[in-house]
């Protein structure tokens, strides 16, 4: 039962407490627990794929990947909350300072970084043409030809690339999206 896991909850209250209220943490923990079919305190990729609405999302695998740090295939509750913290609305920022006074996880920049990493498949801080193509292919399935997709990728890189290295760096990415309301599009509001 939920009240038994207070120990676990207490252990999770380091950085994440700044982003979620106590009742939200409890609710998230309940959700984490219900996804954790193996009951071993950590989620695997399969646990995420069991969510039908996520399984039909064209970028489902990339999103699931965002939860897992480099080279690992289990995510514990702290990691779960940490990733979700990126999606807190920005106006709730009064109390949420990073634990080492760095930028809060749900700042505009960090939200953009999250999205950037969805494109950046090999985590080399650059979106190459090949990576862009692969992500595009995930989003459109079989409905667009290779040539057309290639042109779309070329054009996108051409417009974004300012230093001529035929790939998009994070600062170029930020520039392209400077007019987009990132805060609203990449936020999830809790009801309570």
């Amino acid at each position, binding site marked *: 039962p939920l009240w038994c896991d207070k120990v676990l909850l207490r252990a999770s209250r380091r950085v994440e407490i700044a982003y979620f209220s106590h009742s939200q943490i409890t609710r998230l923990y309940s959700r984490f627990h219900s996804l954790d079919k193996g009951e071993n305190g950590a989620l695997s990729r399969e646990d995420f794929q069991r969510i039908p*609405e996520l399984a039909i*999302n064209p970028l489902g695998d990339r999103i699931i990947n965002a939860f897992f740090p480099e080279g690992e295939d289990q995510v514990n509750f702290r990691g779960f909350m940490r990733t979700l913290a990126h999606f807190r609305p920005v106006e709730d920022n009064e109390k949420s300072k990073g634990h080492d006074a760095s930028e809060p996880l749900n700042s505009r920049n960090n939200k953009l970084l999250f999205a950037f990493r969805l494109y950046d498949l090999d985590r080399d801080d650059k979106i190459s043409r090949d990576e862009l193509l692969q992500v595009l292919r995930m989003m459109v399935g079989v409905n667009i030809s290779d040539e057309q997709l290639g042109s779309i990728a070329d054009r996108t890189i051409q417009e974004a690339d300012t230093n001529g290295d035929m790939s998009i760096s994070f600062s170029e990415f930020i520039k392209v999206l400077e007019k987009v309301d990132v805060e609203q*599009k990449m936020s999830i509001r809790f009801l309570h």
Partner: protein
Amino acid sequence: MGPFYFPFDNLLCMLLGISFTVWITLLLVFIIVPAIFGVSFGIRRLYMKTLLKIFEWATLRIERGAKERNHPVYKPYTNGIIAKEPTSLVEEMTEIRRSGSNRDLDGAATLSSSPLASGSSSSSEFEMSDIFYFCRRGLESIVDDEVTKRFSAEELESWNLLTRSNYNFQHISTRLTVLWGLGVFIRYGFLLPLRVTLAFTGVSCLVVLTTLVGYLPSGRVKNFLSETAHLMCYRICVRALTAIITYHHSENKPKNGGICVANHTSPIDVIILASDGCYAMVGQTHGGLMGFIQRAMVRACPHIWFERSEVKDRHLVAKRLSDHVQDKSKLPILIFPEGTCINNTSVMMFKKGSFEIGCTVYPVAIKYDPRFGEAFWNSSKYGMVNYLLRMMSSWAIVCSVWYLPPMSREEGEDAVQFANRVKAAIARQGGLVDMLWDGGLKRGKVKDTFKEEQQKLYSKILVGTQEDRSRS
């Protein structure tokens, strides 16, 4: 062992004998006889009202206790925990393009010299921000999705003195704990043995009586006796669960030559419906005790039992079902088109097989009140025996049954649309959420076609339709 013990032995025997007789008489008078004749003394409803008052008190007491200790109370919220944007893929993409893009949207003038730039004002090209939609939707579904929560029991807003449904239990007050302890004693010490006895009586009566009726020659007498026997035994079983059922609109009860469809929450649904009317059951033949009961039942009236191998053959199944409904002397068939148990907060996809047969469909909506006992069978968590034990040690099973007006397939409607129409009617009546998702997702993976639909939609936005696709 001297003569000292004999008087006590005698006294003990006498006491046991008397209490046993009293017990059996009470059982007969208050439970078995009313079951046979279908009348009720109203004891169960009184019991239900008393319990409700106690639960309200218990919940208030917990809240008060929690407030005193400055402890937040975990309250489940049935409406979901996050606010989900109701915008569709198309709406959101157009909005992203309208609100913020470095690309010039109107007219032919373009920032780059790429020949691909389309002059269309709806700018159907790829934006790097398109990913936001999929990203947010994905995260929303990770935090709170509509489907997986239908496969586990609904959380209660007030506590019903059962440990199994409690999220806040700590020692709050002595009175509460005593009440809880008393509840445990009553349920396990008194109600459970009573119910188990009744269940045995009900099932054995069913087997014995249907076998006896089976020896009669076919005819009206046999049908009448078979119906009476079935009804009587199911009513005893209903009392074995202390099920308090309210039937609405009995004028719409299913008639011969039709199919009765209902939403499925647990195997108990069968008992609940069959204690108010006679149905032909459909199912797989089992071995052991279940098989024994099945064979006895089919002797008295024609139920439809399939061998495991026959179940896969859809044409065979459809043929047997339609043969049955065409014979007007046979009872209406009872089918649960969801194919699996759902937790009674929603109705999931109806399998179209029973809607292809082309006869009248009688929809029935069943809604359980979870405050007295959770009827949902979570078959991945509990086996059948465990489930029955939990059923019989709850306070009661309270439910409402609505008989909806009969429906038939209309002109130009295919089986799937008909099934969805019936499903919508059942969901509306029972106050359940109408879902398109397949109940089979409890165990199986979602079909790739759904993802392909999403991809197709997005592709349409990217390149538009055939006419306004820009030349490359």
